């Protein structure tokens, strides 16, 4: 057991010295995405289903199944992210700043794929992850 605290939402933010238009290209052009993320058949079209493929490693088959959810050029991009039996949503937000762009990546809504198929679940995986923080806090 490590000391890392699980969170139900993962947020990574960075200030980069490049304009939003350029970052947008890196986020939405398939060959460019492959250069920094993974092989993919992404298209910036809402509803488009695609997958990311990486070299399989122990504990992971290297496949992420996705669907494009939001495309607002140079500003917002979001896709679902299904991998390792868990379903989540990845959302990118680009905000222009004086010297470049504030890039925000949020991965949220973690839930098991079983739960995802279980409509009306009152007690979702997310809630469990929240409770987990308290449980884990008591582990040495």
């Amino acid at each position, binding site marked *: 057991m490590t000391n890392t605290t699980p969170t139900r939402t993962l947020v990574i933010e960075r200030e980069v010295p490049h304009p939003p238009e350029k970052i947008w290209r890196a986020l939405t052009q398939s060959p460019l995405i492959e250069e920094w993320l993974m092989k993919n058949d992404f298209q910036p079209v809402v509803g488009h289903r695609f997958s990311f493929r990486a070299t399989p490693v122990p504990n992971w088959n290297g496949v992420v199944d996705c669907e494009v959810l939001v495309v607002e050029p140079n500003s917002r991009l979001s896709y679902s992210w299904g991998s390792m039996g868990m379903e989540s949503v990845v959302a990118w937000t680009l905000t222009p700043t004086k010297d470049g762009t504030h890039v925000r990546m949020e991965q949220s809504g973690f839930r098991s794929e079983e739960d995802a198929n279980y409509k009306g679940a009152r007690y979702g995986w997310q809630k*469990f992850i929240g409770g987990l923080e308290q449980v884990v806090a008591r582990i040495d």
Partner: protein
Amino acid sequence: MQAIADDVFKALADPTRRALFERLARDGEQTVHALTDRAGVSQPAVSKHLGVLKHAKLVRYRREGRETHYNAQPQALAPLVDWMSLYGTFWRDRFDQLENLLKRMDK
């Protein structure tokens, strides 16, 4: 490792099992009877759920007389916690690569 992770994820995908596990983690050791009184399902159902949690090593039990006492084993959540922290590392690494790409795009 993957097999254990699968067991943990499957065991906790069920709301009744999650509630049982959370109660044991929060309130400490309890008998099957005490768990049944508050679970809202029958004792055989509770026992079956506890069996699944036990298979995933999320709980342990000990017998005392005619009662079976169950304990939470929160350290068995490790695959789940590793899974979450894995993503943090993953994205930070990818952000570095994205920044490298942006620099190269300057030509």
